[in-house]
């Protein structure tokens, strides 16, 4: 089966700015794909090209197998929820939802039924007569999504519609969007700069930076096997270290020197050569801490606690390690006893397994 959307080496330049550079991706029918990346990395531009508001400078976009270069937005079967929602203020919620049906020439007798059905789908039954400004932020989101879906588009585009909500409501709406998406099995491309949102909602994630796609994978694969330093750093709480390869073993085993210490590590991505400078990355939850004793893991270093940040369900420690060239590592601890006893300025011993220290060839 054809992918619903397929981008092949799509670029977009605005004057000197390369907003999107050689982006290729495809989304299978019914999938939820999230494009995630820092602000200004080209996410909105990418979505706009798919929706038809911008023409790619080069490359091709196919929807359901057909090239869409010259198809205007109103002829594409795409529902879009905008960053600022763009609900029509002079229409009620129900009129907003009926709008695409009227514009797309649905038979007038089916329109009221569909509007009602979609109001109920987004749990707004009874609020159809309200205007957007008479609805709460979360309710407006629901109207916007109902409006984008009511005409059964082939593709749903979400341009950070949740970014303006407070955290609790945002997390609620993430699950709500996902429920609706599953219920209708609508192919969806979501855009966000929130890594958590990407991990929670998606079947597939595409990580972008400065207009370039860094990696496309499932949430688990992306988190466990980041392709490069950027991806490793973007997802999760990650410490980056500069190192040099001292030995390359088989199965990706490598030894790297960081500061004065040789650490056991795991090579990721490109092949590594002895002597090459590398980026090393380790996630905060992979570092174990023991005030005393030897936990018996592959790597062990001693450090001093610089900062202790209580976050409720966990404590974040920021630890300076002289043996790693005064590198500063972040780690989590959930052990209540250690929480009580470890204070700032105290010496601690850190340890982790070789496979948790990811090593990437330096990007040039």
């Amino acid at each position, binding site marked *: 089966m054809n992918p619903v959307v397929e981008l092949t080496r799509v670029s977009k330049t605005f004057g000197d700015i390369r907003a999107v550079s050689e982006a290729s991706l495809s989304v299978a029918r019914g999938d939820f794909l999230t494009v995630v990346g820092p602000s200004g990395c080209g996410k909105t531009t990418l979505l706009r090209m798919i929706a038809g508001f911008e023409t790619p400078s080069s490359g091709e976009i196919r929807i359901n197998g057909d090239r869409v270069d010259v198809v*205007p*937005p109103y002829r594409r079967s795409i529902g879009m929820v905008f*960053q600022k929602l*763009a609900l*029509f203020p*002079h229409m009620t919620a129900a009129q907003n939802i009926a*709008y695409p049906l009227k*514009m797309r020439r649905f038979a007038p007798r089916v329109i009221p039924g569909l509007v009602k059905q979609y109001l109920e789908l987004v749990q707004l039954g009874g609020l159809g007569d309200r205007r957007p400004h008479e609805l709460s932020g979360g309710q407006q989101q629901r109207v916007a999504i109902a409006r*984008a879906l009511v005409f059964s588009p082939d593709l749903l585009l979400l341009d950070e519609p949740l970014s303006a909500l407070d955290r609790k409501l945002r997390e609620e709406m993430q699950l709500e969007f996902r429920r609706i998406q599953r219920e209708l099995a609508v192919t969806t491309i979501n855009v966000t700069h929130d890594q958590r949102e990407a991990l929670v909602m998606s079947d597939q994630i595409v990580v972008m930076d400065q207009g370039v796609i860094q990696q496309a994978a499932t949430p688990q694969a992306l988190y466990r096997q980041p392709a490069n330093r950027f991806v490793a750093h973007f997802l999760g709480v990650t410490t980056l270290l500069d190192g040099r390869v001292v030995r390359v073993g088989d199965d990706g085993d490598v030894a790297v020197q960081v500061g004065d210490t040789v650490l056991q590590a795991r090579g990721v991505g490109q092949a590594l050569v002895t002597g090459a400078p590398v980026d090393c990355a380790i996630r905060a939850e992979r570092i174990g801490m023991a005030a005393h004793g030897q936990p018996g893991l592959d790597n062990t270093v001693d450090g001093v606690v610089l900062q202790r940040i209580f976050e409720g369900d966990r404590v974040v420690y920021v630890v300076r390690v002289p043996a790693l060239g005064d590198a500063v590592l972040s780690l989590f601890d959930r052990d209540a006893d250690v929480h009580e006893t470890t204070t700032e300025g105290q010496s601690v011993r850190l340890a982790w397994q070789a496979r948790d220290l990811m090593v990437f060839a330096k990007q040039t």
Partner: protein
Amino acid sequence: MPLTWRFLDTIEALVAALWPARWRGATGWAFLMPALLLVGVLVIGLGYMLEYSLHELNLATYRLRDEYALTNYATFLNRPVYGTVLWRTVLGSVLVTGITLLLAFPYAYVLVRTRVPWVRKALLVTLFLPFFIGQVVRAYGWLIVLGREGLVNSLLTGLGLPAQDLLFHFPAVIFGLVQYMLPFAILLIVPAITAIPEDMERASESLGAPWPATFRHVVLPMAWPGLIGAGVVVFTLTMTDFAMPEILGGGTTDFFASAIYDSFFQISNPGLGAALSMVLVTLGSLIVAAVFALAGPGTLGIRGART
């Protein structure tokens, strides 16, 4: 403490001493006073006008009689010429308003939405340039361009076509007035369009509406308050305009303001002039009130109105 803080604190203390907190509620009114005074003066002037209009001119002394009479209003009703001029004024104002809005809207739209910097600059300069040229100068400019020996006619004769009488009739006056009103209308419509997020139009398009439908169902309704506001301003300015009809009409197509002027200064009958003024003010107010009533109270974007 930084010096500026101390300075500001001192000012605040002074203000607190001069304007105690329990007067704070009146602060808003205090700022409103100058404007209220100005409007007040206008209302008083209108009162005097009304008073004048109710006295007949004594042709023996050329002063207004003391006793009250409706003679001046009777004169207005009995002389068909006033009816004709008033009708011409209202018709002209409606035409000018309609044409001006039709021309101003696309101008304002392109000015706001264009992505090409030089287009925006050119449109802005062309918009503000006329403001530096007064109405009278502009009218004379048109005389030069459109006159019997003017630019247009030399072009026509150059092409072997007969010269045309372009001046001193109704269309010439309408033309001059539209040209005069256009910048005002554009300036009033621009904010209305700026207030429509571009994503509204994109949303409409992605929902299946080609541009004409988007314009009709989204842009126009959202810009409506601005259009009504601009329309009212253009209409009232045109209703009371004097110079354009006088100069471009050459005395053949006077508007009502000319009739008022003539009563005051040509036939020296302030009573009649005042009565004619009252007629114009009343008619204008009625029309504007009707427009607002029809267009709904939300028209000016006043709070509390449902938009």
